[in-house]
C-alpha cells in the first residue's frame, strides 16, 4: 500500500488514474478545483475498489503556491506521500495572434508552475522516505505541436523537460519522475467535438480509435509501481501509435 495524490481527479483521466490506483490498494488524496461532489463520489468509488483511505482536497491551482499547500495537506491527511500524479490541467485554446496575456498566464500557471510547486514539496517528503514516484501528465501535442494551443503545448512540452531534469536530480534517492503523454482520449472535451473533427483525428491514429482514460491510468499505475524502478525521466506516449519515438 502506498499513499498517492492525484491532482484533478474528480473526473476524466485523473479520475481513471485515482480509481486504478485504488484498485491496486493505494491510499488516495483526490484533488478537485471546483467539483467537490464529483470528487466525493470518486472517493466513495475508490474505497469500494479497495482503497484503504480516500480523502478529498480542494485547491485552486491557478493560485501560485496553492499546489504546495495541496501536497502538504495530502501528506498530513494520509500520513505520508509516496506517489504524486500531476494531472490537473486547463485549456484556453485560441490562435496565437488572438491569445490574451491572461490566456497564456493561466495555462502556464496551472499546467506548469503548479507542477513545479507540487513537485518541489513532494520531493522534500519523498527524499526522507528514500522512495517516491512522480508522474506528470503531459500530452502528445507537447511533442507534436497543435494549432490553437500555443500556451497549452508550451506547458506540456515544458513538463517533459522538467521531468527529465528532476528525474536526474533525485534518482539516487529512490525517486523516479516520468511523464505520460496521452493522445486523443475519450473525455468531456472530445465528446463535444463534431463527428467530422473526430474523423480527422482518427486518420492520425494508427490504432483507429480514441483512447480510453483507463488506458492512460494503466500506464500511470505501472510507472508508480516498484516494477518501474529502473524507468526514470521517460515520456510514455499512450496514443494509439501517433508518435513513435
Amino acid at each position, binding site marked *: 500500500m502506498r499513499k498517492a495524490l492525484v491532482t484533478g481527479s474528480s473526473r476524466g483521466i485523473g479520475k481513471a488514474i485515482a480509481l486504478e490506483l485504488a484498485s491496486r490498494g493505494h491510499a488516495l488524496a483526490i484533488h478537485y478545483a471546483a467539483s467537490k461532489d464529483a470528487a466525493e463520489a470518486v472517493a466513495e468509488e475508490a474505497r469500494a475498489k479497495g482503497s484503504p483511505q480516500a480523502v478529498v482536497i480542494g485547491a485552486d491551482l491557478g493560485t501560485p503556491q496553492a499546489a504546495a499547500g495541496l501536497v502538504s495537506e495530502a501528506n498530513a491527511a494520509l500520513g505520508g506521500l509516496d506517489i504524486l500524479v500531476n494531472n490537473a490541467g486547463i485549456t484556453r485554446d485560441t490562435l496565437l495572434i488572438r491569445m490574451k496575456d491572461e490566456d497564456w498566464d493561466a495555462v502556464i500557471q496551472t499546467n506548469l508552475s503548479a507542477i513545479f510547486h507540487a513537485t518541489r514539496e513532494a520531493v522534500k517528503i519523498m527524499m526522507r522516505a528514500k522512495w517516491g514516484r512522480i508522474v506528470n501528465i503531459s500530452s502528445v501535442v507537447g511533442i507534436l505541436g497543435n494549432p490553437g494551443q500555443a500556451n497549452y503545448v508550451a506547458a506540456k512540452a515544458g513538463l517533459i523537460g522538467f521531468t527529465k531534469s528532476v528525474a536526474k536530480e*533525485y534518482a539516487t534517492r529512490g525517486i523516479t519522475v516520468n511523464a505520460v503523454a496521452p493522445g486523443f482520449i475519450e473525455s468531456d472535451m472530445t465528446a463535444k467535438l463534431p463527428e467530422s473533427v473526430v474523423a480527422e483525428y482518427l486518420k492520425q491514429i494508427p490504432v483507429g480509435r480514441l483512447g480510453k482514460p483507463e488506458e492512460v491510468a494503466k500506464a500511470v499505475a505501472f510507472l508508480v509501481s516498484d516494477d518501474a524502478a529502473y524507468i526514470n525521466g521517460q515520456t510514455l506516449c499512450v496514443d494509439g501509435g501517433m508518435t513513435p519515438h
Partner: protein
Amino acid sequence: MDILESVKEVIVEKLGVEAEKITPEARFIEDLGADSLDTVELIMGLEDKFGLEISDEEAEKIRTVQDAISFIQSKQ
C-alpha cells in the same frame, strides 16, 4: 541542548554515519562521504532543527562540522 549534539543528530540522520566519526574537524564531503544532494539535505535539516534560514552563499561555506556549529552560534 548542546549545539554539537544537535548538529550530530542531524548529520547521523541525513548522512547515516556513526556518531563517533563526527568530529568538529570532519569535512562533510571528504570525511563523511556526503554527495551534493546530501549536503543540501543536511543544510535543510539544520534549518529545520535550529529554526533558521541558510542562504546558498552561506551554505557554500559550511564544509566541516565546526563550520556548521560556528554558523549556528553566530545566528543565536
